[in-house]
């Protein structure tokens, strides 16, 4: 997938140090799905030799624009602040495998922490289009870092947990999950690996289920599902979007590899969205 030129349409700071950037890049927008990423070449002083992967937060085919959420810290922050509207960037995508929602799922439970919410943000749009109900659980250190509800559609039930208790539940966001398990048909998560591992453990303790729908699983087995396939993700009760540095995005450099249950898997090709039971959470760091 050759990179194409993207034009910066809009940029605003939605949280301290978090920038929402809107790019006009019709070639990438068409066919993009929730969970997929764009690989952006950020031009930085010192010559950083790496593209950066950002989940597509929203995509609008009619206008050919997409948004990404860029943490404005470190070298990437210098790049973001130096850009002007109309500037161009080199962008490859959409990359990777998307979130898969089972057609019978009515209730989606979304769990996010930090800037990783971007990949679930796109899933919200897709789910609303398909008339599903959504609960979004969001974790942040304090109220000042909570994702603004103004950026979420009204249809979403938004529940917040903060580490210091300044807004919503006091404690980790995973604490909120048991309240919604009986309601949810499928669960989707994005955030730090520690949180995802905790969720995966929670799901394992419930026989791999963070949700109640049967999702095509016949009692007592049925046809085995090919690991890594869209079907495996669709039939999984928990799908996770991993946030990893990606080197080549072509599957050759093996820089983004994480331990899978059946051997190492590449985030850029087999991911970034995995069924939680496809990964070896003991060794994912």
């Amino acid at each position, binding site marked *: *997938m*050759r990179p194409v030129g993207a034009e910066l349409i809009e940029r605003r700071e939605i949280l301290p140090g978090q920038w929402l950037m809107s790019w006009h890049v019709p070639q990438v927008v068409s066919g993009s799905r929730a969970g997929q990423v764009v690989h952006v*070449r950020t031009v930085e002083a*010192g*010559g*950083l*030799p*790496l*593209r950066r992967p950002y989940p597509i937060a929203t995509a609008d085919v009619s206008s050919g624009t997409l948004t990404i959420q860029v943490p404005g810290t*470190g*070298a990437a922050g210098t790049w973001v602040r130096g850009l002007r509207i109309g500037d161009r960037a*080199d962008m490859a995508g959409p990359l990777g495998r998307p979130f898969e929602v089972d057609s019978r799922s009515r209730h989606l439970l979304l769990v996010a922490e930090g800037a990783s919410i971007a990949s679930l943000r796109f899933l919200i749009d897709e789910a609303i289009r398909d008339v599903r109900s959504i609960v979004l659980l969001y974790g942040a250190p304090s109220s000042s870092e909570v994702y603004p509800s103004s950026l979420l559609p009204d249809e979403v039930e938004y529940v917040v947990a903060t580490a210091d208790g300044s807004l919503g539940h006091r404690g980790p966001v995973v604490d909120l999950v048991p309240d919604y398990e009986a309601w949810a048909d499928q669960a989707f998560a994005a955030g730090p690996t520690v949180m995802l591992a905790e969720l995966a453990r929670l799901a394992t303790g419930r026989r791999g289920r963070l949700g109640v729908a049967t999702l095509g699983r016949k009692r007592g087995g049925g046809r085995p599902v090919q690991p890594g396939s869209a079907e495996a993700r669709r039939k999984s009760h928990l799908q996770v979007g991993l946030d*990893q*540095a990606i*080197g*080549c995005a*072509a*599957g*050759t*450099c*093996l*820089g*983004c*590899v*994480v*331990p899978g249950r059946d*051997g*190492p898997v590449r985030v850029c090709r087999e991911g970034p969205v995995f069924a939680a039971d496809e990964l070896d959470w003991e*060794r*994912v*760091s």
Partner: protein
Amino acid sequence: MRTPTVRIVRPAIRPVTRPAPPNARRVPPAGSAGPAGGPGPNRGAVIEAMPQPALDALGGRPVDLEVDLGRGLVLSNPLVAAAGPFGYGVEVADLADLQRLGGLVTRGTTLKPRGAHPGPRLAEVPAGLLVGVGLQNPGIDAVLDRYATTWAKWPVPVIINLCGETAGELAEIARRLEGAPGVAGIELNLSCGAGGRGGVVFAMDADAAASAVSAVRRATDLPVIAKLSAAAADIRSVARSVEAAGADAISAINTLPGFLPSADRASPALGSGFGGICGPSLKPIALRVVYEIAQVVDVPIIGIGGVCSIEDVLDLLACGASAVGVGVAALADPMLPVRLADELADACRARRATSVAELVGTALPSKAGSPSTRGAEYAR
């Protein structure tokens, strides 16, 4: 059009691979006078015997970009994809326009399949990247099985990067490459070995490096390129000993070991702990090593380390490299190596050079200078 294997020793006058435009011979190569004014008595004859490379799109002067690495391994231009970023090439063949490269060096390959270091495997460092992939590869047999028939159809020579713990293991892999289609040469990653397990890393020591090279040399007729490490205390003696042991060419340098703590400073940033430093931060070290070994060996050198622009290419050539490898910069810009090849042809024209060889070693002293560090290790 392609000969079945590039391991054919080519005739002195190489066939023209692309048809020269009709005006190719009529354009006198500016900057090199004809037979009358040439610097040497045979100057004109040499130019006459040289193949006529195709003109560039704008009808610019032809420039001879070929690099002969020995044993019939001739690169169409000096730009090589260094080991790592492009894997085994097959997945990125179109993305990176590989066929226009001088050569493709594969990911490091071992005798047996090697598993993975846990993540994270990449971390950013000033002007570079810390990489801890840990030689993950499916093993030489699986590699040949999967990719060799594809390579055999490619015009670009594919050079296999080999890693092993012992000289015997390296020789065993080299034997399996004998007769394999599509394998044009071997790059020996001497930054491996039994270091830390009672043995020595080949590249650190002249004798160990020579033992690895000569074992592989005995096992195969393929061109052998010895990849040296800047971590060696006495790089000149290592270079001399691999040359004496039969290396056809030398590549320098590999990544250097580095370390970075994680963001919370509670553990290493990489799952592997240590990583290899890649990127522009390596460039002055690569230049130093190439500059030093070019003064003491006669075999061609592939300069590798932090190449991001044509300036980097020209610097390495000036320090004595005949070819240049592009590493981690190709991750962000897969077309970079090919673009640099085009820019190199333009740079030759701008300098009125008819052959890229004229740019090689221009910064070298007329006689071997003193080593970069003085001390007992340079006594021999």
